């Protein structure tokens, strides 16, 4: 397979995953705000912060309110993470790799793009937002289902899988970060205790992990087991260990993957979160997550070196 096509397929998968996660994140945040005690001042701006997009956001908006944050995440053209930009990127990439992905991918991508373009306003206004986001999530899953159901497990499939899993791992760290940040930001201890379960519950929900967590862990929703589950579970498809294993399995099927395997082993070993005798996770957990994000960025660099066009 052409190196350039490999790169485009990888990005198609990353962007597709990004669209779904972003849609999920917004829809969960919406509900989270309804549930928290009024004394908790949780701002929409946190969504910008956990995605490291303060600078880009502040360049456009001065008011840090819900409307602007949602607009920025859904429709802002200058934000390459926004749903609209990501879909545009998916469309460009699928357009240039139509020869290696299932035939209907192109048509489904067009349908989803047309839907989002025509209904963007619904996402910004709260009354129809849920329905709008649900349709996006379903559209992404439809494309993913197509790939799973009809694509031979060839080089292109492995690259799609690698792209999807590295993006997922990254998104899982960001969701965990959203949880720990929300808690660290609260000054009132009583509010923290009351909100604990709500916040970690929403982190699970936003990764579609609440049900699986309960069945696997069989304990109440608390910070430490949630972190452990999302970092180290072997079976849940959005846990970071699972994502790294999936990348390793696919990398093994592709040429020149030795460096990548070494790095994957190292990151996997560094995942476990240390409990330092306290009841709650503290600021050091945030550090831990940041370290994983840096490692994932390095992994991305190794993927480039192994398979993509050399400039």
């Amino acid at each position, binding site marked *: *397979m*052409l*190196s*350039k*096509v*490999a790169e485009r397929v990888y990005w198609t998968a990353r962007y597709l995953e990004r669209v779904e996660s972003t849609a999920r994140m917004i829809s969960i945040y919406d509900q989270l705000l309804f549930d928290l005690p009024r004394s908790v001042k949780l701002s929409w701006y946190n969504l910008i912060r956990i995605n490291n997009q303060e600078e880009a956001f502040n360049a456009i908006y001065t008011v840090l309110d819900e409307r602007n944050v949602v607009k920025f995440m859904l429709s802002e053209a200058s934000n390459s993470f926004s749903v609209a930009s990501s879909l545009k990127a998916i469309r*460009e990439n699928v*357009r*240039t790799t*139509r*020869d290696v992905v299932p*035939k209907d991918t*192109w*048509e489904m*991508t*067009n*349908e989803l793009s*047309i839907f989002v373009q025509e209904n963007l306003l619904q996402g910004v206004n709260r009354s129809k937002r849920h329905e709008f986001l649900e349709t996006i999530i379903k559209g992404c899953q439809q494309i993913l289902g197509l790939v799973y159901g009809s694509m031979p497990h060839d*080089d292109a499939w492995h690259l799609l899988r690698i792209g999807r899993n590295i993006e997922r791992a990254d998104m899982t760290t960001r969701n965990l970060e959203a949880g720990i940040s929300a808690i660290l930001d609260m000054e009132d201890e009583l509010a923290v205790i009351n909100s604990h379960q709500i916040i970690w519950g929403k982190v699970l929900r936003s990764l579609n992990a609440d049900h699986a967590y309960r069945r696997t862990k069989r304990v109440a929703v608390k910070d430490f087991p949630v972190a452990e589950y999302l970092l180290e579970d072997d079976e849940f498809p959005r846990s970071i260990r699972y994502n790294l294993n999936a990348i390793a399995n696919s990398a093994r099927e*592709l*040429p*020149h993957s030795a460096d990548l395997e070494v790095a994957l082993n190292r990151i996997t070993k560094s995942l476990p979160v240390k409990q330092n005798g306290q009841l709650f996770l503290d600021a050091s957990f945030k550090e831990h997550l940041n370290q994983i994000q840096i490692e994932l960025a390095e992994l991305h660099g190794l993927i480039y070196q*192994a*398979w993509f*066009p050399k400039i």
Partner: protein
Amino acid sequence: MSIDWNTYQSGDFYDELIGAPGQARKPARQLLDYLKTLSEQEYADRKKAAELTIQEMGVSFTIYAEGGNIDRAWPFDIIPRVIDKDQWDQTAAGLKQRLKALNMFIDDLYHEQRVLKDGIIPEFIIKDSKNYLPECEGVSPIYGTWAHICGTDLVRDGDGIFYVLEDNLRVPSGVSYMLENRSIMKRVLPEVFEEIDIAPIGDYTAQLFDMLSALSPRPEETPVIVVLTPGIYNSAYFEHAFLAQQMGVELVEGSDMVVQDDNCVYMKTISGLERVDVIYRRIDDVFLDPEVFNKESTLGVAGLMRAWRAGNVAIANAPGAGVADDKVIYAYVPALIKYYLDEEAILPNVETFLCFDDEERAYVLANLDKLVVKPANESGGYGMLVGPHSTKKEREQFAKLIEANPRNYIGQPTLALSTAPAIIDKFGLEPRHLDLRPFILQSKNTYVTTGGLTRVAMKRGSLVVNSSQGGGSKDTWIVTSEAKE
């Protein structure tokens, strides 16, 4: 309310569907019977459905506009154009004959040049042709075929006869739209396909693949075939991607390939370099190889000509094939058919006046207001003068151009291009002028598409069918007419 077909009038023009008011031509009878059952609302609904389908299928073309490239949805009219099968078979035979002679001509030009020595074509025409490439002299592509893919433009004049308007032997485009038009029709008007015997067209990409495979310099191996595109900003990028996907071959850009010291072409894959056997190129000659032609070109591959001359890679169409895609050469095609095949041309040319000839030039200059004047080597409908629609200033400008470079211009009578009914917003059914571009393949075997791409000038009275200039298209049906009158 249903549409009143009795009021549809195409005036003096030959209409493809309607012979006399309210009366269908023989091959279109079943179609018209069906169309008459549709109400105005149904037409509007189907038209809307077609537009939606085109968006979802992502059928588009790219135009260059101020401030960048715009992707436009493919313009399509839902009323098909119907051609009788007997007439089509005859036309297809004429197209094969024509391409066969043209390939013998190109091969001759790059070898012995008998055609010049025997005085069939004046030597200076070739010497002054910018599409004649001395770098190709002495090269012998397999089967003697240089132009493997040809898109010939046919028009019907007032007499209902098909004339050849031009041969596109360089990088003709449009075949993907022909195929997509049929897919759109099947979704939008599925019921007509149940009732009418319409010849299928879907085997084109398989035929294209076989044709390209037959060119491989390593016939004992499974050939590695690629489609070489200039990239996403090219107006026909949609087609390049479509054809690569349909054939299951790689879509590459110049930067994806490299020629090594062994004079073989390789593409850059995730496992390293992989040898390429056949290149279906969709970029012009001058951009193919910066070592030989345009030094600035980043679209091509350095060393490609070396590899081709060494016989290590096949290029379709071969470099230099464009020499026969010259509107002056066009005028000689009937003579070339006679010369190489000793046959009479099955398909007639449009009468053509060559401006390098003093007498013919004088006629052209005296009749600029009646004629169409075309430059010899442009495509896409650019740089021409349509006399009856021109201003005095434009005519004066063209007179100067012709006198400055007579070799480079031809004149043709303004044709009464045939029409077919099209659905036009706010007006309902109106006649629109159209042409037809069938595609002919030649390597080991020769193949002609069943019908072709019908292009329509969507503006009232316009004769310009190019999609870059407001043209649309229709599905083209080849239909066996019932024996009974």
